[in-house]
């Protein structure tokens, strides 16, 4: 790789590692695994960098690699040994009170409970559309599928989450009434 390409890659990696890891975390629910996924993504991206950067699309390409890496990771044999709870805070937020921390942890657990119940592609569609705010066509490009598939995956994912929230709301109401 040329020196200028190498420098450009390093600049990209420094600037985009954190945003990519946030998406990775929402996909996998584990900061450690998110670190691994982003490192793997950057290594793969490095191999294709001269071609990718010439097409002026490193961000979308990196996102695509990240998604594939995550989907592939889920198939790998050692996957079962990993935890994907996403509920353990990595950094203690000492500024927040115990009640706030408890509530945040509870909300996070609920989010990952809902997301982990979805098939991986539905989950990915939701993260791309509502966290990364991608358009349907951009999400389709990242997922390597048609726009219609993105729409149907998104609709199914939202429906499943709505059903789960409704159920949780009923349970909460029942608990309060009793």
């Amino acid at each position, binding site marked *: *790789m040329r020196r200028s390409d*190498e420098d450009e*890659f*390093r600049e990209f*990696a*420094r600037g985009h*590692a*954190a945003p990519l*890891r*946030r998406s990775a*975390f*929402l996909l996998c629910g*584990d*900061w*450690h695994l998110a*670190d691994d996924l*982003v*490192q*793997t993504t*950057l*290594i*793969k991206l*490095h*191999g294709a960098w001269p071609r990718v950067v010439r097409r002026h699309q490193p961000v979308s390409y990196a996102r695509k*690699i990240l998604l*594939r*890496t995550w989907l*592939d990771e*889920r*198939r*790998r*044999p*050692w996957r079962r*040994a*990993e*935890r994907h709870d*996403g509920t353990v*805070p*990595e*950094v203690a*937020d000492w500024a927040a009170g115990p009640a706030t921390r408890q509530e*945040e942890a509870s*909300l*996070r657990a*609920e*989010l*990952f409970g809902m997301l982990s119940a979805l*098939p*991986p592609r539905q989950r990915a569609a*939701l*993260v791309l*559309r*509502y*966290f990364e*705010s991608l358009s349907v066509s951009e999400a389709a490009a990242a997922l390597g599928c048609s726009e219609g598939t993105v729409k149907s995956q998104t609709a199914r994912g*939202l429906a499943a*989450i*709505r059903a789960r*929230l409704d159920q949780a709301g009923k349970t909460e109401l029942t608990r309060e009434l009793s």
Partner: protein
Amino acid sequence: MIENHLADRMRAALADEPPLGFDPDEVADRANQLRRHRRSSLAAVGATGAVLTIAVTAVVMSGGGGGDSEVGTQVTTATTAPDAACPSLPPGGRPPLNFPGSAPIVARLDEAGPRLIVKHLPGVHVQPSETGMIAYDCPPNVGTLYRVTGSDQTVMLYLIHARAALDLANDRYAEDQSYRLAGEDTATDGARIRTYEYSGTEFSPALVVVRFGLDGMVTEAYLSGQMPLMAGRAELLALASDPELRF
């Protein structure tokens, strides 16, 4: 709107984001090292292949060859496999990357994988693996995943060599409720063959043939994607039984 609610929840879930667990510049350094390493490993395999070809030719010409059907096996098979017990992984842990002598094995299998898929699965052409073969230790295993060109289907090759004798214990599907044992039989060479069908909902349908060799080599050929799959049990068995897929 549930969309806004979901987006808010996602942003809130990132509130306690820890610092990056790696240095992006070190990742770039590692990517450069991997590239150099892969090139040198491929060169080493090429050189080894040339030397072995010469050696095998010399044996055959001197009348010492017992036929050519075993040449590939003689060239590539390790004589013994480690029989050591592996410590159990800690929660969240991964097995260590690579194992002693894995670099040339990875390079050889990287070259052989796509070629053998084309050879044994008619009409199935795969793209180069995005990761290349990945080797893990404890037990020593090598594997990767290939995407089928023009299709959503994928082929995964996975090899484990933990013992020097029939190793039915290294069947990753036997206790997985998502995989149904669709057949089990014995090959003419004594290897045990198990065929599994994926019946879970998390992934696409899949057909897996696992070959347990008498030398301890466990070879999996895994085809996954929307039905109909582009190959069946016979083709996957031929792939899993190829003498080049071993270490």
